[in-house]
C-alpha cells in the first residue's frame, strides 16, 4: 500500500490522516527528503521511495502568531489567543514546518529553540472530508 502511492503532496496528506509522517528517499544516492520530493535534487534520480519518519526532533525556529489568516481565525485564534507555528529539525536530519502545540503562545519568551519535540496530528472533519494538520509538542 505504502509503496503504491505516488510521491506527492496528496499522498503526504493521506498519510497524515493515517497518523504517519512520511518523507521520500532516493533509491540511488539515499538522500532523504521531508516533505517528500518526486525528484532527487542531489543526484537528479527519479527513482524515489517512501520513508517513514520517526516524528522526533527539536524546535529550530518558531513564531507566535497574533494576526492569523481567516482560516485560523475561524478556528478561534486571534490577538488574545495566539498560536505557535515552527520549523522542526527531525532526528533524521531533515526539517519540516508544523504547528507547535503544548506551549504557551501568549508567552513567547518561554518557548525555547532546541526544545525536544514529538509529532502529533490535529484532525479536523471526518471520513472523506478529514484534514490533518501536522503538529509537534514537547516530548
Amino acid at each position, binding site marked *: 500500500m505504502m509503496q503504491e502511492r505516488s510521491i506527492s*503532496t496528496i499522498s*503526504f*496528506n493521506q498519510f497524515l490522516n493515517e497518523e504517519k509522517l512520511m518523507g521520500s528517499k532516493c533509491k540511488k544516492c539515499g538522500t532523504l*527528503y*521531508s*516533505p517528500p520530493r518526486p525528484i532527487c535534487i542531489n543526484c537528479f534520480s527519479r527513482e524515489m521511495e517512501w520513508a517513514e519518519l520517526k516524528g522526533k526532533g527539536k524546535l*529550530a*525556529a*518558531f*513564531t*507566535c*502568531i*497574533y*494576526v*492569523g*489568516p*481567516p482560516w*485560523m*481565525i475561524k478556528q478561534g*485564534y486571534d*490577538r488574545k489567543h*495566539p*498560536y505557535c*507555528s*515552527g*520549523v522542526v529539525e527531525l532526528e533524521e536530519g531533515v*526539517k*519540516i*514546518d*508544523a*504547528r507547535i502545540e503544548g506551549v504557551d503562545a501568549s508567552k*513567547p519568551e518561554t518557548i525555547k*529553540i*532546541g526544545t525536544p519535540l514529538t509529532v502529533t496530528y490535529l484532525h479536523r472533519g471526518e471520513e472523506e472530508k478529514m484534514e490533518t*494538520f*501536522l*503538529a509537534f509538542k514537547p516530548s
Partner: protein
Amino acid sequence: MQQKKRKLGRGVAVVGAGMSDFGMFKDKDSRDLLVEAYNEMVSSVDKGIDPKDIEAVWVGNFSNDFYTHQAHLGPIVADLLGHTPKPVTRTEGACAASTLAFKDACFAIASGFYDVVMACGVEEMSKLSTEEATEGLALALDKPYEGIVGFTFPGVFGALATAYFEKYGATRDDLMNVTIKSHSNAPFNPKAQFKATVRDLMNRRIERAKKKGDPVPAWKDEKEALWDPMFNPPIAWPMHLYDCCPMSDGASAVLLVAEEIARNFTDNPVYVIGMGQGSGRPLHTGASLTSFEANQNGAKEAYEMSGLTPKDIQFAEVHDCFSIAELIHTEDLGFFKPGEAYKAVAEGQTRRDGPMPINTSGGLKCKGHPVGATGLAQMHEIWEQLRGEAGERQIPNKNLRIGATQNLGGTGGTCTFCIFERR
C-alpha cells in the same frame, strides 16, 4: 560545464524615473497611481521624451488578481498610457515583481531588439481588510507545507528572527534599532506612507490620549515605547507592528534606453552595471534559517557582471518587509559579516550620514510596500540619490557614485540585486 561571465550584450541606462505617492488611498486606484508614476517619469527626462518613442512596456504586479479582481493587467496598462498596440508583458515574482519587469526590459535592450522601453510596477492592497490582505500575501507561501500550518508572512520572518537571535545573540532590542533608523529618514521622503519618526508617532499617541482623557503614556524614549505592547503590539512574535511594513497602494516607473543613446535624453544618466537574481526554497527546505539562498545567487551574478565587490557599494535600498529582513539582506550581500549587521545598525553605520546608508527612502517600513511597485520604487531612490535630487534626505557623501537595490519576493523564493552607477 564552464560558468559564463554574466554580462549584457550592450549597456543600459536609466534616463527617467517616477513614483506615485505611497499610502492607503480610498480615492485612488491602480490606474490613477500608474498615471502618477508615469507622468513623473516622463517629466523627469531632462531633455524630454516623446512617448511615441517608447517601444515596449513591462509591468510588474504580484496579485491585483486577488486584491482587486483584475487580472491580465499588461494590456490595460499599455492602453491607459497610450502604448497599445506595442508589446506589453506582465511579470510576477511576488514582492519582487517589478524588478523582474526591470530585468527583462534591460535584457530586451541589451539584446538589441529595442532601444527605448519602460518598466513599471503597481499594487493596490488597501481596499481589503488586514486579514484579507494578509491572506493575499500568504498566497506566496508554500501553501501545502508552510501555509497549512498557520504561517503568515510576518510569521515566517518571525521564525527567521528567532533563529537569528539564537545563532547570533541578537534580541528584539536590536531589531528596534532598524525601525528607529528607517523612521529617521521617513519625514524627508514626500512620497512616504509614514512621513514621521518613531518619536513623532509617540507624540501623536500622547496627544490623542490627552484629548480623550486617557492615561498619558510616560515613555522616556523610543525603545520604551517600542517595548510597550499598547504602542507596538505583537503580530507574529518576535515581529511586532513596528517590525512590519504596512499594506500600501502605489506605482513606480523607469525609462530605460541603450547606453549609446542615453545622452540624447539626459546629461546625467544612471547606468545599470550589475544585475542578479536567485531562487530560494521554503523555510523548511532552505539551507539556512539565517540567510536567503536566493540572495547569495543574486549577489554573485550582479557582483560578477559589475566586477565590483561589496565594499564598492556606497549605499543601498534593501527589502525590509520586516526588520529582521534588513539585517539578513545586508549580511547576504556582503555589506556586513554574518551575525554582524545588528551591531553595525546599533553603531549607526546604516544611518543616512553613516558609512553605509541603508534605506534612505525610509525603506518599505516607512515608505510603504505596494508589493508590485517596490522594486522600481527602490530604484527611484537610487536615481534621486545618485543625481543629487533627494532633497533633505540626500546622503551627505559628495562622491556618491554607486548604489544598489535588493528586492525579495515571497519568503525568499525570488531575490534580485541590481547595481547602478553615475559616471
